[in-house]
């Protein structure tokens, strides 16, 4: 049984893990799922810009799962959330969050993005967001990480989303 059986991961942490050279270890400890749009993004490179991140071999070896959702699932998500009013997120992130909202499992989203955490707070799904720092700590791969990968960052922006939710902003 892996430590994180239901982990959705956004582009930022994928790049960070490849840049740190610990992606292969990471997928041993976590059941990683990635949005098809993010996985197919040809613009993913390591932080030094030297290595293109190709997730296909990991998918073929079933080391990661790729999620593909129907447009109607995203529409349902879109319809309950006034995206333009509160945040504009990438299609890959919409796919990830729509999948999370549609599933009955307790998925976690590992991101390094203000808007993604704000949306989770706004949707009253604060507990379903997690920072890369927290995941790495729990699987024994702790590292010194930059600000967007920290727990403090996640909490700050999730709180902002929660405040917007309390003030009735953003949801239709």
């Amino acid at each position, binding site marked *: 049984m892996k430590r994180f059986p239901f982990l959705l991961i956004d582009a930022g942490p994928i790049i960070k893990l490849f840049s740190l050279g610990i992606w292969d270890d990471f997928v041993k400890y976590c059941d990683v799922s990635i949005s098809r749009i993010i996985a197919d993004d040809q613009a*993913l490179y390591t932080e030094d810009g030297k290595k293109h991140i190709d997730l296909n071999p990991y998918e073929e070896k079933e080391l990661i799962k790729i999620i593909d959702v129907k447009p109607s699932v995203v529409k349902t998500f879109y319809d309950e959330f006034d995206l333009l009013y509160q945040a504009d997120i990438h299609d890959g992130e919409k796919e990830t969050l729509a999948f999370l909202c549609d599933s009955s499992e307790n998925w976690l989203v590992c991101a390094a993005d203000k808007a993604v955490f704000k949306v989770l707070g706004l949707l009253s799904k604060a507990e379903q967001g997690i920072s890369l720092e927290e995941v790495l700590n729990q699987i024994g791969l702790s590292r010194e990480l930059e600000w967007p990968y920290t727990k403090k960052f996640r909490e700050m922006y999730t709180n902002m989303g929660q405040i917007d939710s309390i003030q009735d902003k953003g949801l239709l």
Partner: protein
Amino acid sequence: MNIGNRLKIARNGIGYTLEKASQESGIGQSSLSEFENDKREPKFSQLSKLAEVYKKKIEFFLTDAPIINKVILWRSKPNSEEERKATEAEFSQLCEQYYNLEVLTGEVRKVRFPEPDVDKPEEFTFGQAESFARKVQNQFCLGDIPSSSIKRVLEERYYVKVFHLAFSGSAISTFSPEFGYAVLLNMDRTTKQWRRNFDLAHELFHLLTWNIFTTCRLQNTQPTEDEEKLANAFASQLLMPDDALRERIDLRKNEQGEIKLDHLDDIAREFGVSLDALVYRIANLFRIQKQDTQKYRDSAKKLAKFHKPRESENQETLPERYCDLALRALREGKLSLMQFAKYMGISYKKAQEYLMEEEDFTDEAISISVD
């Protein structure tokens, strides 16, 4: 949600055949055909890819809202219909993104443009176009050399969206109740700065008189020849104000009341217009006969061969205000990093550089009390 029909509309909008759409998206032609005919539903990731290729927001395919065709006016179109449609699609996408940024940052501003004294197209004369240009000069506070400030005033005070792209035609203007007024100028290396100045002033006429000429455009989306002539008269007057131009000419004319074309070229450079445009303007200002005007224009063309081509500033595709709003939206967590990279046309890695430091950008931290 009628995805199939919207896919077909979006593909036709950018002028792609099924074959071209297939090449660009990597999705098979038969699948595309099935999607368009509602025989099969695309996956969201395929829809996202097609939205990217067709330069549409993904929401365009997920809504039942009626599709409103935008009126886009060209000063001169590219010869290729495919290039025209592709340029229009890219321009529209940029306008929508700009508007999204305004909404996200709470910066949607209503503006009130100066209005002409006539409200019917057939009542618009050259004299009225020129008199309207004087009114605009005053209201916009454009000073002696309007070409040096007009773009900034339009963008920062009247929130006109001014983009630059490289294409083989001339300028475009459009208005949409959704995203307001917008102009596209040519950033191609062969397009000189003076040409862009004139294009912008010309397109401004269309924006300011949008409602007056709208009825004509219901039948024909392109401006008539007369409307184009009025726009040229307006632009000419706007960029070369009477008093400032007379003053420059008085300084340079000889005792016989003549001015050399070399000196006129200096004046044209100062006003940010072509020598040809200046000769035309002077002919109008001093009521020079048509045949004489043509003679002077021919001489000006010959002389131009012996002058060093004027320097043109490089133009960025995106306006400064657009970039500033994108950064603000990113900072406030209203735009995700991936979306920010897309809006700015930069790599994800480059976008990340804007988000690495811990910072305090709360309203309290970045506000100055002025009470």
